C-alpha cells in the first residue's frame, strides 16, 4: 500500500534547551490505524503537533501526501492542514455554539477569508454535516448548544468537525483520556470504523495499552523523545511494552492477547 506520511529524522528542542523529540523516524501507510504509546512527557503530543506544524520541529523532514510539510509556504500549509483532521483530549469546541456550527468549522479551511468570517456555508456542506453527525449518533443533538453535551458526545462532535474536512489523515491526541470506559469504547469504535470503512488513516496517542493493542494495526512506542518500538500489534511482546514504559517486568497493567502477561 501507498505511504501517506513519512516522518524523517524529526527533532524538537524547546527554547529552554529541553529536547522533546530526537531523531524520530517512521512511516504510516494509507488506511493504517497506528497508536503511539509511551509514558507521560515522552513527547507524544509534541510529535503529533509537529506533523501538522501546530508546533514547528527544530530539524527533520515530514512528507505528507507528497507535500514536504516543512518546505511549503503559509498558504500551502493551510491546504496541507485541511487534509489532516485533528481530535483533541479536551474536545476544543466553541462551547457557546451549536453542534452543527461546531461541526461546520471543519469546512473553514476551504473558504475564502470573507466567507469564513461571515460563516457562509453552502447547502451541501450543511447536509454533509448533518449526515456525518447522524453517522456518529448525534442526530438528536444537532441544534443543541455544545456545552449541554456529555463528554463522549462532545468528543463525537470533535470527530465530526475533523471528518467534515474530508481528511486523508486523522490525528487524535489522547481522544479518550477524559472519558469514562463506556464513552471511550464508543469513540474508539467510531475511530476504528472511520479507518476501516472510510479508508481514512488514523494516528492516535493513547495512554491505555489495552486499547492500543485492541484497536491498532501498528504500535509506535515513544520514550524520552525517541521511538523505542515500531511494529505490528501481533508482534509486540510483554517485554517490548515494559521497555516502552521503562519499567520492570510485572509493574504494568495490561492484557496481551487475552492472557495475563503483565
Amino acid at each position, binding site marked *: 500500500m501507498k505511504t501517506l506520511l513519512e516522518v524523517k529524522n524529526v527533532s524538537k528542542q524547546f527554547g529552554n534547551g529541553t529536547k522533546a523529540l530526537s531523531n524520530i523516524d517512521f512511516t504510516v501507510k494509507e488506511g493504517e490505524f497506528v497508536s503511539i504509546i509511551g509514558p507521560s512527557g515522552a513527547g507524544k503530543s509534541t510529535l503529533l503537533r509537529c506533523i501538522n506544524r501546530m508546533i514547528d520541529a527544530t530539524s527533520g523532514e515530514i512528507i505528507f501526501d507528497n507535500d514536504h510539510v516543512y518546505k511549503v509556504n503559509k498558504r500551502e500549509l493551510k491546504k496541507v492542514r485541511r487534509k489532516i483532521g485533528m481530535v*483533541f483530549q*479536551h474536545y476544543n469546541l466553541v*462551547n*457557546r455554539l451549536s453542534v452543527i456550527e461546531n461541526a461546520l468549522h471543519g469546512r473553514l479551511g476551504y473558504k475564502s477569508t470573507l466567507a469564513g468570517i461571515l460563516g457562509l456555508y453552502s447547502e451541501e456542506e450543511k447536509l454533509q454535516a448533518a449526515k456525518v453527525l447522524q453517522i456518529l449518533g448525534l442526530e438528536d443533538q444537532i441544534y443543541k448548544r455544545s456545552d449541554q453535551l456529555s463528554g463522549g458526545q462532545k468528543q463525537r462532535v470533535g470527530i465530526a468537525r475533523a471528518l467534515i474536512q474530508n481528511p486523508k489523515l486523522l490525528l487524535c491526541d489522547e481522544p479518550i483520556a477524559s472519558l469514562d470506559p463506556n464513552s471511550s469504547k464508543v469513540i474508539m469504535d467510531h475511530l476504528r470504523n472511520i479507518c476501516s470503512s472510510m479508508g481514512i488513516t488514523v494516528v492516535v496517542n493513547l495512554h491505555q495499552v489495552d486499547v492500543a493493542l485492541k484497536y491498532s494495526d501498528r504500535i509506535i512506542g515513544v520514550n524520552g523523545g525517541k521511538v523505542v518500538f515500531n511494529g505490528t500489534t501481533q508482534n509486540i511482546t510483554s517485554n517490548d511494552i515494559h521497555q516502552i514504559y521503562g519499567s520492570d517486568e510485572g509493574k504494568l497493567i495490561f492484557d496481551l492477547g487475552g492472557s495475563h502477561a503483565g
Partner: protein
Amino acid sequence: MPADVFAKKRRNSLLLFLLIGAATAVSIIITEFSIAKGVSSVPKAIQWSLSNFYPTKDSLIKLPDILIKLKETLLISVAATTIAGILAFAFAILGSNTTRVNGFFGGFSRGIAVLFRNIDVSIWALVLLFSFGQSSLTGYFALFFGSFGFLTRAFIETIDEVSSSSVEALQTTGASYLTVISQSVIPSTIPQMISWVLFMIETNIRNATLVGLLTGSGIGFTFNLYYKNLSYDIASLVVITIIISIISIELISNYVRRVIL
C-alpha cells in the same frame, strides 16, 4: 515533626498580626490622628447632614437643569466606554498570547494597556484639562483612556482563558487568521466582554462625577457649583439623582448579564 509545623504557623500568624498592629500605631502617631475625636465627630456630621443636606421644595425648580446635566454625564460615560471597548478589543487580539500576530505587536499593545491602566482617571482629567480646557470633551477622553487600558487587560485575559483551545482546533482545519477570530474568539468571548463593558460603564458613571468636578463639566460641576454657593438643598438633590441613576444602571446591567451569560 508535624507539631513543630503547627507551632511555626501559629508563630507566623502572631508575628504578622503584631506587625500590622505596629504599622497602624506608628501611622496614627505620625499623623496625630485621634480615634476618639474621629468617632465622636460622626454624630455631629450626621446631625449637620440631617439639618442642612436635604432637598427642599424650592430646590425642585432646579431639577430639570440637573437632569439635563445628568443625562449628558450618563451618555458621555456610555459613549466613552463602548468606543474604548471596541478599540480595546483590537488591542486585546494583538496582545493575547492565543491570537497575537507576533511578539512585537504583542508586547506593544500590552505595554500601551499597562500605561493607560496605571494612570488614574483623575490624573487623565487634570492632564487633558490643559489640552481641551473646561469642556465635556475633556471628561470624555479622561474616561475613555482609563476604560481603554482596563478593558484591554480584561479582554486579553478573557481571550486567553476562554478561547485558546478552540483557536487551536480551528487553526488545524486550515482556517485563515481572521476566520479563526470571527468563528472562535468572538463567539466564545463576547458574553464576558459585554459583561466587562457593563462593569466599566457602572464604574465610569461613578467616576464621571469626580471627573466632571475636576474638568468643570457635567453633573460633577453642577454639584460643585451649588455646594460652593452653600445651596446645600440643591446639592443634596444632585447627589440623590446620581445615586438613583447609579442604582438603576446597576440593576439593568445585572439583568443583561443574567440573560447573556
